[in-house]
């Protein structure tokens, strides 16, 4: 679960991770008040969306006086911000962060994440801060420092020093960095984060270390023990159809094609998308109803996909192991009747009680096409949309 910069900075303050003075504003009037409360100009106005690359995309601007605050806030609020991470469709800006301007001496990059390969927490740091770190990682990987922390031992003193010395951090500011990094690690572990990124981490001209940006992603599987963090979820940043699907424990991702698909199991769902593409059509979604989906889940899956105007045909691919084909077929019949489906539906079913399942679908008198296997299903669905 991603959160906004302003929320992440609020959490940083609770963990004594130094950030600049700032507050969030939902209107230009609030932005002006926030700027005046900061007590000095310039201030920085930052569009709040769940995507990086805001600076390059034009979502971060400096305001030198109250008039500029009003102009910039007015321009940001309601605008569709496109960055390299939002995709071409962009994101609507609904709030801005108003922050005290800083005089920057040096910029660094700092992040913590779970490293799948070593099964440790990895601290990544670089002197090349403030810019696209993925480009740095790809072109000059030697410029990225990596320190691996054993989650059972926690972060060690020598590891704090290692990050500091290898970054070439100036001696007078070193202690500030150790404190920041230790607190950041504590925050990461205590809040079940999957990513905490500060880009840039700055050293100001007066020698203060500050997290100038804050990007935090939490492990969705761990939110059961963080009810307070759950309140930070912003549904405006999520696809409404995906929000609806999540209510029924459906794994759904909205895509751009026109073939809706319903599959049991994530791996098979991905493979089904690939098969649709191979046959010359494009998937409209990823939809995993779960290895052992219930009739109710199937019905909701159907309803959500039918509500998508770009869907011109539906491919259902079920390998019934735990999920029995007869139960699935009943779910499809109920859903089809309730939703009054008019577009072509191709069904490929295999596994436990497949013959009874097919019988139920045939008896229901619905407009369905059966496919004998995956290749047949792909050919039939492509023919239906092309």
């Amino acid at each position, binding site marked *: 679960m991603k959160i906004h910069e302003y929320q992440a900075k609020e959490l940083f303050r609770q963990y004594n991770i130094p950030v600049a003075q700032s507050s969030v504003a939902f209107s230009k009037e609030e932005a002006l008040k926030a700027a005046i409360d900061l007590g000095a100009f310039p201030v920085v106005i930052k569009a709040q969306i769940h995507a990086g690359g805001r600076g390059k995309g034009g979502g971060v601007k400096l305001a030198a006086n109250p008039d500029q605050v009003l102009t910039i806030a007015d321009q940001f609020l309601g605008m569709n911000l496109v960055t390299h*991470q939002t995709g071409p469709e962009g994101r609507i800006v609904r709030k801005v962060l108003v922050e005290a301007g800083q005089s920057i001496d040096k910029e660094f990059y700092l992040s913590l994440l*779970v490293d*799948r*390969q070593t*099964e*440790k*927490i990895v601290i990544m740091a670089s002197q090349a801060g403030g810019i696209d770190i*993925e480009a740095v*990682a*790809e072109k000059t990987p030697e410029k990225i420092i990596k320190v691996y922390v*054993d*989650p*059972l031992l926690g972060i060690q003193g020598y590891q704090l020093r290692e990050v500091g010395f290898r970054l070439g951090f100036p001696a007078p500011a070193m202690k500030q960095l150790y404190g920041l990094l230790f607190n950041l690690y504590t925050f990461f*572990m205590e809040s*079940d984060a*999957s990513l905490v990124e500060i880009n840039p981490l700055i050293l100001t001209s007066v020698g203060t270390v500050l997290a100038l940006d804050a990007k935090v992603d939490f*492990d*969705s*599987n*761990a939110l*059961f*023990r963080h009810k307070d963090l759950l309140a930070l979820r912003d549904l405006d940043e999520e696809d409404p159809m995906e929000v609806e699907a999540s209510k029924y424990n459906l*794994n759904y*991702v909205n*895509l751009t094609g026109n073939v809706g698909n319903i*599959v*049991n*199991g*994530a*791996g*098979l*769902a*991905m*493979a089904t*998308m*690939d*098969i*649709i*593409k*191979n046959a010359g059509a*494009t*998937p409209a979604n*990823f939809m*995993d109803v779960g*290895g*052992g989906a219930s009739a109710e889940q199937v019905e909701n899956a159907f309803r959500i996909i039918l509500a998508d105007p770009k869907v011109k045909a539906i491919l259902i691919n079920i*390998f*019934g*192991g*735990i999920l029995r084909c007869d139960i699935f077929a009943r779910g499809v019949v109920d859903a089809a009747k309730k939703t009054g489906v008019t577009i072509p539906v191709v069904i490929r079913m*295999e*596994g*436990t009680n497949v013959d009874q399942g097919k019988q139920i679908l045939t008896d229901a008198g619905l407009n369905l096409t059966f496919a004998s*296997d*995956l*290749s*047949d*299903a*792909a050919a039939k669905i492509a023919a239906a949309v092309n």
Partner: protein
Amino acid sequence: MSIFVNKDTKLLVQGITGKEGSFHARHCVTYGTNVVAGITPGKGGQKMDDVPIFDMVSQAVAETGATASMIFVPPPFGADAIIEAADAGIGLIVTITEGIPILDMLKVKNYLATKTCRLIGPNCPGIITPDECKIGIMPGKIHKKGGIGVVSRSGTLTYEVVDQLTKAGMGQSTCIGIGGDPVNGTNFIDVLAAFEADDETTGIVMVGEIGGSAEEEAAAYVQKHLTKPVVGFIAGLTAPPGRRMGHAGAIISGTSGTGAAKIQAFRDNGIHVCENLGKIGQICKDVFRVT
């Protein structure tokens, strides 16, 4: 032979009285797995069908000699259940539970490094040696005894592959789902090494997905250490970057973890690539030269 499980495996089930636990424990019994005990704290002394229930894994091990565990407890208790099994001396821990927090798994993995037990999963369908032992949620009857080893990151996709193998006349030595989480117990390389050493296994099918770099590492291992033919498949070639495709581990981050890179790694390392899942049975038949 086979790998990791066989007719001598004695299974206990953690979370045996839950809805999922009891359902699948019964299916394992029906398949012929020797289920010797169930664990549900507070229900020790009771029975589920003919299976005795214990409060603690250590009691069950002492009284039944259980060698393997199948875990069905809810995700908040997953890490605890794995550590309990490890501390009780269980040699093979198969965790079906989906949704265990990644930091819990990270601690479990670093702890298990000090132990000799093997963990399969979490978030996996389990392991089966056809006609001998089924530990997990896979449909038993699609499997057939034979010489093909199957290792996969997913569930139903594995059933699809196994079904095609069986229909094309190729039985399996052992089939293992290693799970769709970013941090898991047994990885591709562990299984590939075991299949290479197993004299019953004549060919291997490896089913991967987008996300992480486990497939790339496994491909390099195949080139270096395997003499048996390997067929590989990758799911998620059409998945967009940055979106989690159901499995917590199935996400392309930045430029790493893409399907294209994994397919390339397969090709570069002598793995026979199947690009059309509908034809994997046929491709295996050709590669493994089954008549």
